[in-house]
């Protein structure tokens, strides 16, 4: 079974640091925002003081990683003229339409894609957008007294509302990212390529044919490792948990209301909100564990 290198060490570590920091930020930030529903988790990890401390440590990690990626990308683009594979082109728009037609059964063939398809590029663009906004609003909330000298109190209060609202969208984004990239039915329980850096040539030919063609690789000795486990009990349980979490979060998002200065809150603090948010929190914890496991396996792999 022939394997090819898909991700560099830098990409692997950046993904891990980003994932860890974002998940810890969500795990600590959501109980603060929705303390009525998720206060139990805050108590579990030691109360509001510890929760906020962890939130800020994760924020350090996120800002460190984001700065690294930003500088690395700019230098790579300008000095080495590389990295164009992550930029959007017109082909991505055509691929997106074709992809949706394929999903809906309107065409028989999915689009042929290069190293990164439109959904991966959207993921990368989405993360960049969210990280910049969340870091900027988070820093304003972190140092309100310092910011208050140049910004009005009205703005600082509004920034907290924006930070909380974006966090909910970010949580949905995380669920969508793991669903569409990592925990797919054909890769269940998880796609390891982002942790090991390698994937089989057979899989690469199926998923990223244009990338393989570009690399001008010879055909390998075959032997696909892709096995469909879509009917397994664990896979069904996972899909069920994501669906419950997603549905309640979508319904919950529609039932958010303004409380003047208090910011976004849920109208209904009943059991459904607690179950939905707790399921989302549980899934995030599961993803955090899976990421640590994946990274440990990746480190143990001989390249």
């Amino acid at each position, binding site marked *: 079974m022939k394997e090819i290198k898909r991700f560099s060490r830098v990409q692997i570590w950046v993904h891990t640091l980003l994932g860890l920091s974002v998940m810890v930020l969500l795990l600590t930030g959501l109980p603060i925002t929705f303390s009525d529903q998720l206060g139990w988790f805050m108590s579990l990890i030691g109360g509001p003081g510890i929760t*906020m401390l962890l939130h800020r440590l994760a924020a350090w990690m996120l800002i460190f990683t984001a*700065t690294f990626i930003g500088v690395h990308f700019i230098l790579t683009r300008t000095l080495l003229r590389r990295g164009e594979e992550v930029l959007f082109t017109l082909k991505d728009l055509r691929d997106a339409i074709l992809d949706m037609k394929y999903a809906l059964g309107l065409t028989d063939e999915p689009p042929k894609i290069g190293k990164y398809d439109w*959904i991966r590029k959207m993921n990368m663009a989405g993360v960049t957008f969210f990280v910049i906004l969340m870091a900027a609003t988070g820093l304003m909330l972190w140092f309100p007294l310092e910011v208050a000298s140049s910004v009005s109190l009205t703005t600082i209060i509004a920034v907290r509302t924006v930070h909380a609202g974006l966090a909910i969208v970010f949580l949905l984004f995380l669920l969508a990212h793991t669903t569409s990239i990592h925990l797919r039915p054909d890769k269940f329980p998880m796609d390891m390529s982002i942790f090991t850096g390698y994937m089989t040539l057979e899989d690469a030919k199926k998923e990223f044919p244009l990338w393989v063609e570009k690399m001008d690789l010879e055909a390998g000795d075959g032997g696909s490792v892709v096995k469909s486990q879509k009917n397994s009990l664990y896979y069904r349980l996972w899909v069920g948990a994501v669906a419950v979490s997603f549905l309640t979060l979508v319904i919950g998002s529609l039932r958010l209301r303004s409380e003047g200065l208090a910011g976004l809150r849920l109208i209904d603090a009943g059991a459904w909100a607690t179950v939905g948010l707790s399921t989302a929190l549980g899934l995030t914890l599961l993803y955090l564990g899976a990421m640590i496991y994946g990274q440990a396996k990746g480190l143990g792999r001989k390249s």
Partner: protein
Amino acid sequence: MKEDQITLVSLAVAFIVLGYLIYYTASFSSQDPGAYFAEKSLRNVEAAELPGIYKDAAVFNGKVNSLMYAIVAVGAILIAVLSLLEYLKFVKLARK
């Protein structure tokens, strides 16, 4: 510049930013973060007392709330629909 050098320069810049952030944060060590940022109690105080004092802030935040409400709702539905389509695609691919 080679790739390793780019990585080193990027790491150096990231560490400088992180170092500054840690230094800046340390200068606030006299504050009690647990008490200051106990979000729930802060909110309750604001919700109970501040609207009367900062009416303008409440009105502005109400508008921002409405905007965020729309962003969250549209974002949630869009992400849900896209995820469902991706899921359908991968189920089809897995059956192939």
